């Protein structure tokens, strides 16, 4: 087993920065509590994915280039999002193919971890559940599932929590219909998808919805809120921090 790194870079993602900062804070706290020093380069903005997925590769590249410059040390880069991690790990090498800084892009890509992946596979984190009994539904993001191949990590983390019962919902692996700009460019299809997802999750009767992706949470949570009576939703990092006594500490 390779030695556990004592220092990592944290990439917060723009959605976490603006909408779900508590997810980012909790993620950093989980890492710090596990004895890992966290470096959070303040000049970070966005991974470039929105432009990349919209076909604006030159714009995506200039934004990506600015991020790459922030992670010079040969240490892991941990990201609390499957899709931003996927952007850096899978698409940076494509985006920079043939460019003068291709090697730096490939180097950054090789050091990227999605948060739950890092907690499970690298830190082998052990969690002690201090919370009251609770039922949850898990929505694994498509990027975490298919692009990063780490969908089982969130399950394994939740599996460590003795008082948390996971309830499966219908068509669980199906996309929630967010897809970044898809939700805006194809609003009717996206609406049909998210409304079905909301129905499936509601049908479980769970207390809370957990995901490793703030984009999906914003989409599903927003649809639930519009209907009224939203099931509380949380990023996995925030949930883990709360369940393991983080807030009391």
């Amino acid at each position, binding site marked *: 087993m390779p030695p556990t790194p004592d220092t990592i870079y944290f990439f917060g993602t723009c959605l976490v920065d603006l*909408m779900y900062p508590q997810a980012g804070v909790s993620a*950093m706290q989980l890492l710090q509590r596990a004895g890992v020093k966290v470096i959070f380069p303040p000049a970070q903005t966005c991974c470039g994915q929105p432009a990349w997925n919209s076909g604006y590769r030159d714009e995506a590249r200039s934004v990506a280039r600015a991020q790459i410059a922030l992670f010079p040390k040969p240490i892991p880069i941990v990201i609390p999002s499957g899709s931003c991690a996927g952007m850096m790990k899978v698409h940076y090498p494509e985006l920079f193919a043939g460019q003068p800084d291709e090697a730096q892009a490939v180097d950054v890509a090789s050091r990227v971890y999605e948060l739950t992946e890092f907690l499970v596979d690298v830190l082998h984190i052990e969690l002690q559940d201090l919370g009251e009994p609770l039922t949850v539904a898990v929505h694994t993001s498509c990027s975490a599932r298919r692009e990063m191949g780490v969908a089982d990590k969130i399950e394994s983390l939740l599996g460590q929590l003795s008082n948390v019962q996971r309830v499966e919902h219908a068509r669980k692996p199906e996309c929630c219909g967010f897809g970044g700009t898809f939700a805006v460019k194809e609003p009717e299809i996206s609406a049909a998808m998210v409304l079905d997802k909301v129905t499936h999750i509601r049908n479980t009767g769970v207390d809370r919805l957990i995901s490793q992706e703030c984009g999906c949470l914003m989409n599903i949570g927003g649809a639930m809120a519009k209907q009224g009576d939203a099931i509380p939703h949380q990023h996995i990092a925030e949930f883990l921090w709360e369940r393991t006594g983080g807030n009391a500490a």
Partner: protein
Amino acid sequence: MSSEFRNTVRANLAKPEVRANFYRAMDGLMTRRLDQFPDKVELERLRTQSMAIRANALSKLPELLETLEANLTRNGIQVHWAETAEQGNQIVQAILERHNAKSIIKGKSMVSEEMGMNHFLEALGIECLESDLGEFIIQLDGETPSHIIMPAIHKNRVQIAKLFHEKFPDIPYTEDVDELTQMARRILRDKFYAAPVGLSGVNFMVAETGTLCLVENEGNGRMSTTAPSVHIAVTGIEKVVESLSDVPPLLSILTRSATGQPITTYFNMISSPRKPGEKDGPEAVHLVLLDNGRSNIYSDPELLATLRCIRCGACINHCPVYVRIGGHSYGTVYPGPIGSILEPQKAGLDVHGELAQASTLCGACSEVCPVRIPIPSILNRLRYDGVRKDTANTNTVGSGKRRTLSEAATWKTWAWAATHPTIYHAGSTLATRFKGMLPTNLGAWTTVRSAPKLAESTLHQQAKHLGVDHE
């Protein structure tokens, strides 16, 4: 832009019966496929092998097509090349005229749909009868296929029963699937014997032996290719494989990926017309090889993977967009994820480029693709081609045609802000501070969702108190 797609989507989303039909069918197909691959390692091995077979064939496509033509010709099969759909139709027309044929009976062929062959021939007074049960049903209703494997999958049993009763009022009404099937079978049986020409598609063409392979379940393909005295096969140039040993792995993964069947009911291998002393088979066999934009796709190393497709429809069956809008919404012959990459390349990004947007890039399609076509990557590439400025560097038809000044300006501004951290953070801080003043109506987003709530303060602000290192 292409509001036709948007309008059809809206109309189909509003039809609960159609959506229910698709859900039922797709859930069943997904389960059946999964049951066919109990061993994940074996599945991945077979996918890699199948991908390699198809990639190998495409890597030497011109050479294999020459070998194929030589061997088919040696076997007595007449080969015709069509660069466009129109040329393909004219070739078929010429063959029919030579045999003085006024009608044809068709097995299932998506390439003939691509050519618009039925319309073309019917305008010449030639009757085209579809003999695949699904195609027969949609032909009765004046529709087009909504799926490449199961053309009438958007209809349920009761709808089909009503349709049959309307078209064949002399036959008693029934909702029994077996009886309905028998009814179609009886109607078609005489047609098979009477038709002078049968037409089919092709699943694989084997270059080394000059063999046409045809996969089917109903026996109508076998009838169409043997009962009439002339058989015309039409297919795309990409369907060639190098050798006979390439076929079993592809066949094995095709049926399991498509319908969840371990094996197909009929597998036809057509190697020649009827030989002296043989009791059945057509006296003449023709193969029409259609290009229709495929050579252009072939010329781009990244887009070439599109042509690996073996038309199993697994990507369609697993697509969360397709299941909701149905095949007809796409307005193209090939629907779903494969259609969304194939059709914009064939017709041009200016014509069908919007289909490349009709995906969340969730990756369910590429996860199940038996030949590992990276559909999301190709969608991404087509989105790029649609808006790129350096159109001279790509052969994709309609490149740059989707670029609008306003969208380009938006991304340029976004990139400027995201590469100037001070500006970016000032903007995000301002947004959180004055979030009460932000609009709650965000157009499309807020139709079914509440407006996203900005946090009280950004992560960047909160991290300052966390004791993290900011180097």
